[in-house]
């Protein structure tokens, strides 16, 4: 007997009897003998005590550092109640809400999630989530080519996080979508270059703000250029900054996407995170993923249901624009509870603190001879400096003191060697920043 398998010998005998076979082996007689001839070479079964001990050892092999790095993953505060609520089995163990009568819980939080994402981005409709910010951006690219049909070229800003660009490249290749880079002007997507590159074959234009250097991009005048060619405007934006910054809708975007990890989701070594995607109603039927809508039940009671399902792979099969089925539903609940708990003022306050602290650190580091300013551009919680010392030496030193140092942009792009990008959230105290400044000043 085993704790996850309830069958007693008597049960097994009675069941075999009902089936009309003599042994369990008879249930596998359809598998050719040749295929059964192998030896499993996997670890032996662990008891719970052994398991915990083993994982404690594994956990201890990782060093918990205080991050001054972001680069797509941000160390924001997570209210304690979130984990208690998302671990309720009704949320945790259910599957996709195909039987809406017993899935109103999942459907309601998806509806609330969609409502919050549309509030943040200013867009009209959000889906129920995507795998991560990078794949959400790739799906936005497919939306552009699905809506424009004949146009197969996508313009991508060079100031985007290179990992997102890499994902776009991998997704574009099998469909022969052509990616054309828009160069930067001192750390900002170059509008002049956009005007030069955009043409009748352009299906969409994808940009990111704050960008890979932490710079807040200003898209005044972009949508006019893009609309003139009937192309779609896609803005990838860290949604936490939307407490303050001009929204994708205000800039005239057709699609807003991004990584919503910054809404309190733990770092967890890169996942699970959650991508978001929102668009205008006119593009809604080309949007991938699940969408929840309000309806009534037969007694007239308000209820929620997955809607516009005819877009999806299980109905459209080879004609679907996307193959996405499951997304990151539980992480959508995470974000929904985060935004409910922090609310209107909490999100603003946390982000304002991140903004203040980042600017404080920026000012203080520029007083040190080890650092120089590179861009004269506004930033939010992440900023880039020129570093006059060896970045490996610096980061090793910081690590010894328990800090995760800034991102070395040289790892992303050879031409950016010597540039480093710090991230500061509301979680970084003045003591931590002053300690960082002292260590760096002594190098």
């Amino acid at each position, binding site marked *: 007997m085993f704790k996850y*398998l309830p*069958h007693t010998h008597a049960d097994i005998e009675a*069941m075999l009897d*009902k089936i*009309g076979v003599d042994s369990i082996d008879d249930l596998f007689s*359809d598998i050719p003998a040749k295929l059964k001839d*192998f030896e*499993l070479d*996997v670890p032996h079964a662990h008891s719970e005590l052994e398991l915990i001990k083993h994982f404690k050892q594994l*956990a201890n*092999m990782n*060093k918990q*550092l205080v991050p001054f*790095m972001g*680069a797509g993953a941000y160390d924001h*505060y997570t209210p304690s*109640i979130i984990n208690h*609520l998302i671990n309720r089995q009704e*949320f*945790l*163990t*259910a*599957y*996709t809400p195909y039987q809406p*009568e017993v899935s109103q*819980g999942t459907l*309601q939080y998806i*509806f609330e999630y969609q409502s*919050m994402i549309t*509030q*943040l981005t200013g867009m009209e409709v959000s889906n129920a989530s995507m*795998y991560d910010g990078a*794949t959400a951006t790739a799906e936005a690219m497919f939306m552009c080519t699905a809506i424009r049909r004949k146009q197969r070229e996508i313009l991508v800003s060079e100031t985007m996080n290179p990992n997102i660009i890499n994902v776009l490249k991998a997704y574009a290749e099998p*469909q022969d979508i052509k990616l054309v880079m828009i160069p930067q002007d001192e750390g900002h997507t170059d509008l002049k270059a956009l005007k030069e590159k955009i043409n009748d074959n352009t299906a969409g234009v994808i940009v990111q703000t704050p960008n890979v250097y932490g710079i807040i991009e*200003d898209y005044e005048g972009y949508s006019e250029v893009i609309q003139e060619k009937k192309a779609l405007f896609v803005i990838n934006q860290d949604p936490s900054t939307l407490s*303050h910054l*001009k929204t994708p809708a205000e800039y005239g975007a057709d699609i807003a996407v991004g990584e919503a990890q910054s809404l309190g989701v*733990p770092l*967890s*070594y890169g*996942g*699970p995170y959650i991508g978001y995607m929102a668009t205008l109603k006119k593009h809604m039927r080309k949007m991938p993923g699940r969408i929840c*809508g309000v309806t009534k039940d037969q*007694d007239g*009671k*308000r209820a929620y249901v997955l*809607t516009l399902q005819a877009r999806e*792979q299980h109905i459209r099969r*080879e004609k*679907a624009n996307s193959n*996405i089925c499951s997304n990151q539903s539980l992480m959508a609940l995470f974000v929904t509870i985060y935004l409910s708990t*922090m*609310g209107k003022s*909490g999100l603003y306050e*946390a982000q304002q603190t991140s903004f*203040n602290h980042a600017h404080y650190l920026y000012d203080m580091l520029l007083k040190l001879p080890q650092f120089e300013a590179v861009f004269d551009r*506004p930033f939010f919680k992440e900023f880039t400096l020129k570093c006059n010392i060896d970045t490996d030496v610096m980061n090793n030193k910081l*690590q010894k003191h328990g800090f995760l140092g800034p*991102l070395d942009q040289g790892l992303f792009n050879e031409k950016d060697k010597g540039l480093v990008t710090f991230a500061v959230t*509301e979680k970084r105290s003045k003591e931590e920043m002053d300690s960082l400044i002292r260590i760096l000043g002594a190098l």
Partner: protein
Amino acid sequence: MYYGHTIFEKSQEGRRGYSLPKSEIKEYKLDEKLKRQSCPKLPEVSEFDVVRHYTNVSFKNHGIETGFYPLGSCTMKYNPKINQDIAAMEGFSTIHPYQPVETTQGLLKIYYETQKILSNISGLDTYSLNPYAGAHGELIGLMIIKKFHKDNNDLKRTKIIVPDSAHGTNPASATVAGFESVEVKSNKDGTVNIEDLKKVVDDTTAGIMLTNPNTVGMFEKDILEIQKIIHEAGGLLYYDGANLNPILGMARPGDMGFDIMHINLHKTFSTPHGGGGPGSGPVGVTKRLKKYLPSPVVRKAGDLYLIDYKDEDSIGQISHFYGNMGVVIRAYAYLLTNGKERLPEIAKMSVLNANYVKESLKDVYKLPIEGICKHEFVFDGLKDESIDVRTLDIAKRLLDFDMHPPTVYFPLMFKETMMIEPVENESKQTIDHFIKIMRTIAKEAKKDPSILKNAPYNTPVRRLDEALAARKPIVSFKDYTDSLKED
């Protein structure tokens, strides 16, 4: 109705649910022209408001711990609690993905060891754990097929063969990966029709996508012949791991001749489905395809685990970081708990349960495919076809008995499909109860079909008007308040 409110309807101006430390740092000002014009309308609620709200929202869901959940093809097995505790350990949850590898050896070891175990269980060479879900894994697998043929300069291979009984994701993934999908007909028992396969295979075949056992739970007995036909034609075989549970430790896709496969960790390896994610869809390949796996790759050099980004042959990067590590940790814990000793038991008990349900109900429900099934099987509505009741009605009536219905109307091979997968964790007593209820429902159907047609009665809401939702989409709280104004 009070508890049915949305969080927005509970909002009161000025209320707060959070606390943040006071900062000694002065306030910096953001340039006015970069500021948004209006404030996002997020809820203003207290911490307790949030807790009570989402607790009540949760009551409107049926989870695995609520009751029986025989949803075919989804493998709704128990999600062990200990795996939740482990994944939440601070030594995992607080680690930044760009920390130097010397400071993340524990996580990298989990990644590496998990892929090694998955390789052994499936008979393939190496896995990437980067894909986020089953469908994502499929897409990555097909990208690998594409790259393989491209590298061989075999550019005319543009078609992926998919059985007509396959899940909709298979053809959809083929399209997204830039292929054309071609259907191969199934035999009456859902297995691939070899004669038809021979007809559709040619030098434009890039590969075939199969599940084994297939979507109706039958083992593809001719798999060795199928692999021969495809390989001799120069194509590759892709295994959709949705149905891996019943062959754990009993047979391996690699030995059947499959070149590439994905595994749904949230099905076979018990990680929580989460209401539809986060899942994880590791992709495994044979040795000759290893170089195409997505970037980055986790590798072991001596005693050190490393992350490699630049590999010319790779299909490239398909995730921002390394996949859903939190999900991988849970699956690794499950693999260790079961170990070599228990993995084959999982397969055996899941197959025993499925056959037992099938044999116990086939006198009242129509069994279109006779014979031993694997982990799941299908009924095609009630045996007595003179009764005017549809599978949908049976499914809705089951809800009144605190049971989640089987998968309905999939696969499309039969008109009234009901696909039942009673996983290995379910005891004979639970299953006997399900059998009893299914018999009760069949009796009700004969006595008075309207009992079923008006079901469910005891659920948080009753049958919904789906057409209303699709014709006039109300997809945000703002839409909802606007619609009230219109009325």
